[in-house]
């Protein structure tokens, strides 16, 4: 394997990790502030992707599609927070899991009903198609590079929002003691709706950006949701920093595992068996990573007990 291919795969891993971060950040924020496990986060990812594909098809503009994705995911997020989710804050986790599982069923089937069972396609915008030459003469997809940069920008923005602004102060206060900030005159229910809509918008953004690389279809959200759970378990719940570290780690492990393991096994097995064993093991690698973290640090790398 050439070094150029390896660097390319590392960049792909970063891009995958950054996508996972957008999902995991919303989930971990919502859990940290409201104590809620939200399975319907994958549906918001799907809504973002569909809104982007439909918006871009209707207007012919990728950027407008992206805006459509952000707003519709945030709107649907606010809508389910106001109607369903806020009834669940005081409930136990089992109720939260089941109610949000019910939301997945409703969203998935409703999307299938509106858009049909066939996947939609979202084209990369003209100004981001093609490749860019990186230092060292490596050709890399402009669009994927843009995703990495957008994701990192969102990470910085999120960090600044939480550590430097008044809203962020309230979010952190809400994580520590929700009754106290209510007593201090902060309207908690508005804060909760805002946090939920923010998390939803991040999921929608993630879905829309990935929509141009993969096909946009019903059920696309849940595999990513489960990967985001793996990220959170590895990074530690409630921590944005942990979500970023976990996401990059999972993205790199998965992508590099899929490329390197078959090659590694081929060095001492016959090629067809190596491909089989290598790819089967690669598909399990991030879960093995998660098991390792659970063995040594059950609260995650950045989690507190």
């Amino acid at each position, binding site marked *: 394997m050439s070094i150029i291919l390896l660097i390319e795969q590392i960049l792909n891993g970063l891009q995958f990790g950054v996508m996972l971060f957008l999902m995991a950040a919303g989930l971990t924020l919502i*859990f940290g502030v409201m104590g809620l*496990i939200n399975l319907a986060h994958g549906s918001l990812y799907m809504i973002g992707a569909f809104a982007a594909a439909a918006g871009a098809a209707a207007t012919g503009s990728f950027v407008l599609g992206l805006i459509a994705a952000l707003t519709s995911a945030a709107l649907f997020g606010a809508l389910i927070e106001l109607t*369903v989710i806020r*009834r669940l804050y005081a409930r*136990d*986790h*089992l*109720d939260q*899991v*089941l*109610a949000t*599982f*019910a*939301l*997945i*069923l*409703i969203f*998935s*089937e*409703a999307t*299938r*009903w509106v858009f049909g069972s066939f996947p939609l396609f979202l084209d990369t915008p003209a100004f981001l198609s093609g490749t860019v030459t990186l230092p060292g003469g490596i050709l890399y997809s402009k669009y994927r590079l843009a995703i990495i940069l957008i994701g990192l920008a969102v990470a910085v923005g999120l960090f600044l929002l939480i550590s430097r602004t008044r809203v962020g102060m309230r979010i952190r206060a809400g994580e520590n003691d929700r009754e106290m900030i209510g007593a201090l005159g902060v309207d908690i229910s508005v804060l909760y709706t805002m946090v939920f809509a923010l998390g939803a918008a991040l999921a929608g953004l993630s879905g829309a950006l990935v929509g141009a690389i993969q096909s946009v279809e019903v059920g696309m959200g*849940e*595999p990513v949701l*489960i990967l985001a*759970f*793996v990220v*959170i*378990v590895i990074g530690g*719940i409630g921590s944005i920093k942990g979500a970023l570290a976990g996401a990059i780690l999972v993205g790199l492990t998965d992508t590099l595992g899929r490329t390197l393991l078959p090659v590694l096994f081929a060095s001492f097995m016959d090629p067809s068996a190596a491909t*089989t064993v290598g*790819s*089967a093991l690669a*598909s*399990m690698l991030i*879960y093995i990573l*998660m*098991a390792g973290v*659970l*063995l040594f640090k*059950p*609260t995650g790398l950045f989690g507190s007990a």
Partner: protein
Amino acid sequence: MLPERMINLLILGLLLAVPLVALAMDEPFIITLATKAAVLAVAGVGLNLALGQGGLVSFGHAAYFGVGGYAMGILASHAQSYTPLMEAPFLIEGTKSMLVIWLVAIVASALVALLVGALSLRTSGVYFIMVTLAFGQMLYYFAISWPAYGGEDGLSIYVRNGFPGLNTLDPIQFFGLCFAVLLIVLFAVNLLNKSPFGLALNGAHQNEERARTVGINVYRLRLTAFVISGAITGLAGALFADLNRFVSPTMFSWQTSGEIMVFIILGGVARLCGPVAGAAVYILLEHVLGGLSEYWHIYLGAILLFVVLFAKGGLVGGLSRREVRHAG
């Protein structure tokens, strides 16, 4: 308001009566539906031991369901093609005997549950849910990427496996067999719930600190419950595979885990026959709503949402007077 024992008899009586009536009316499809309900009920009873009694919200029970299913698929496919599973270091042949398959399914799923449980139970609460879900997904991807047993396409078994003295291809005889398994499992779980083990498990669910203080090893207790729970669900997986004469990675999918959980919530958490009622209602909804609309999951979602938000005890809880503590 009825005592729970009466409701249990009513549920099981109905589940037994429906296929008998269907037999009299010569409606084999309805017998198959009832068989499906009985098999899925076994899976639900298995999960309910961990979830209801132990308060362990496992979102990965599809793993054991799938392992049970593949135990049947792998053994029967080798028997069907007359190729041994392995020759060295010792010969293992496939089999078409249900009893052997059930034993293998139970042992294999118990082993997987032991591994997953030992890791997952180091965490609790939301972590536990996410970790069990993730390990379930791991097995799903493994089943897809491992080509030896059909990969994504799954495995078809042409003839249903045999049980001594029965013609398992006759729908009513196969139903009887599955129903008998369900009764045995219910009986065993009921004994377990009332044993010191079950009481300690429930005690640790209600107050972990207190259970620890009286000297109970909560981790070992929960792990034992988790393994038994997984083994029962694995047995259900083997039966389910035999019912369809087909196994595929879908049995491992997170939706399957969700469905098994839905049986419990529809019927009533921590109720002995809750999963039986829940599985029966689920099959009924699937059949009736599925006939009305291709998009019946929307209605299922709405019903589930309603039950979770407003009718927490489920079906058995709604009919019964006895309060049970809800899993937390």
